[in-house]
């Protein structure tokens, strides 16, 4: 009681009435309880994924295609090979489409468009794209590439639907990073006589690269988990295929189809596939975080 610090504390306590102090405690406890409540679903999901998913994992689970059989006990229902490979193929093509276009548009917005009305219109439409429900992207591609051409589902159509979904994420995140690059860096390169395109390609882009990688990886992670845009574009099939012009299986779509099955073994396969999908997405997220930590900008 002799140190000035504790004296101040004693006085402070003296000033606050018990009612107010009680209110403060209750409010703090409620806020803490809310935070704990928010974390409970995560714990439960992770626990059930591991509990049910690991039980489904085996060597053959990853090396066989689903057979489509589930009626007879002695028949194998197969694994998720075609779904994993399909997801990788579809998402890879979607990235190849969305990343260069997205970064290109972001460069235009920051380096050329700036605050012009046209650039602001583009920004507005990118924001519109951000809010579009993912199933509507599937409908868009369906109308243009399936109704429009009179053809049927194909892996690359799924990729296009996913790339539409990735575009706004890539554009927005790349724009945020490009804006962080100091103007002095550009100006010194320009003052040395470098043309604008060279400034962009040898100064701006290399500086922004690590930061942009983060946004890109997060966009890929998001696309990899999407089911709705693939339902009516890439469809579902059993066989592994490396032809993006054919029907293609994917992890989310296979999980979605397996969920509705009355057979326990098929539902277990869904848990195993869900665990595989979440592991893939978490790895991408983890790499994104590591890259962003090493980046000089973000």
């Amino acid at each position, binding site marked *: 009681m002799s140190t000035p610090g504790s004296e101040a504390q004693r006085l402070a306590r003296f000033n606050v009435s018990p009612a107010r102090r009680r209110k*403060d405690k209750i409010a703090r406890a409620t806020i803490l309880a809310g935070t704990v409540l928010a974390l409970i679903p995560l714990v439960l999901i992770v626990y059930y994924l591991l509990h049910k998913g690991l039980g489904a994992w085996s060597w053959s689970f990853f090396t066989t295609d689903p057979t489509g059989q589930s009626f007879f006990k002695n028949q194998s229902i197969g694994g998720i090979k075609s779904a994993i490979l399909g997801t990788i193929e579809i998402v890879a093509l979607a990235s190849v489409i969305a990343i260069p276009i997205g970064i290109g548009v972001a460069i*235009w917005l920051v380096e050329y468009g700036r605050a012009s009305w046209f650039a602001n219109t583009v920004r507005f439409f990118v924001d519109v*794209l951000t*809010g579009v*429900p993912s199933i509507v992207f599937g409908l868009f591609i369906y109308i243009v590439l399936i109704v429009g051409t009179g053809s049927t589902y194909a892996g690359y159509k799924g990729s296009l639907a996913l790339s539409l979904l990735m575009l706004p994420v890539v554009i927005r*995140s790349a724009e945020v990073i490009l804006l962080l690059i100091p103007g002095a860096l550009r100006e010194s390169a320009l003052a040395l006589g470098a043309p604008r395109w060279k400034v962009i390609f040898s100064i701006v882009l290399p500086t922004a690269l690590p930061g942009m990688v983060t946004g890109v990886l997060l966009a890929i992670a998001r696309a990899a988990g*999407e089911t709705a845009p693939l339902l009516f574009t890439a469809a579902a099939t059993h066989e592994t295929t490396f032809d993006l012009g054919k029907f293609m299986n994917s992890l989310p779509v296979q999980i979605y189809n397996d969920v509705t099955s009355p057979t326990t073994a098929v539902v277990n396969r869904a848990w195993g596939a869900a665990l595989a999908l979440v592991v893939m997405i978490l790895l991408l997220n983890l790499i994104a975080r590591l890259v*962003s930590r090493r980046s000089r900008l973000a």
Partner: protein
Amino acid sequence: MARLPDRALKYGLTILAGLILALIVYFFIRLVGQAKPAFAKEGVLGFTFDNDWNVSANHFGALPLVVGTLITSGLALLIGVPVAVATAIYVTELCPLRVRTPVTVLIELLAAVPSVVYGLWAIFFLAPKLQGVEQWFAKLLSFLPFIGGGLVTIPNIFIAGLVLAIMILPIVSAISREVMATVPLDHKEAALGLGATRWEMIRIAVLPYCRAGIVGGAMLGLGRAIGETIAVTIVIGDSPQLPHQLFGQGYSLAAVIANEFGEATGLHRSALFAAGLVLFVLTLLVNGVARLLVLRAARANGGGRSNRQIAPGGPGLDEAVAATP
């Protein structure tokens, strides 16, 4: 000569940006074109507000779907927003510095779980486990219309709303955190200096300052909840009747498309495109209002000394990523 690649790059990129605009407008026009037969038969208002979704009679009134979408997303906000704001307050104002990053990362992890996995978990774990509680609740409140009475089904509207609440939590929490980080230190110190307790400081200095931003974040969450498809399709029960009970089956606009599109032909298919269009316009409106609110909050909070400023020129990286459906 050196000007040539410069011009090529400039015009090339301009055309690219213009193409994005053209593409969105083109998609929209095509979607309207596909939805036209359904709108022509039922009328735009008739389609949206008629209570009869009857595939076999070829009659399509989307009111049960619209109502289902609104109820589930409303529930999601009701449950999700208070919890999300609590996490944001905890992380920015109350928690020890040591646990700040872990808690933030854990909440962001909720955004990394794919929608179909939420659906899988909800239908095989959440819904069966909660059925007893729901039944008890329904019996307890049996005097209330809509909430009480009736038999609790395993896939039901309440579960759909609960799952949506979990799914919108990360984005509402992220935006609330961003906004709370912009509260000027002066305001907080002034409140504390006048003798306010921590909670009084939060109530006087932090919350009023952040109201517009939090509302904007909630609206972005609402936009997301409205458009969420797969998880809802799995847990809502897929019954195209006007919902008459909270713990009973229902349907939503997005779910009807995911569920029926595969085998739909003719007018049915057109009606599903029309449902997609209604969904699109609905999310557009909600997101528009949300962006406006967040933007205004960011602008109003521009001055003053604070923990952190909102990134210049737009939303932060996390927000940009989190904001996508």
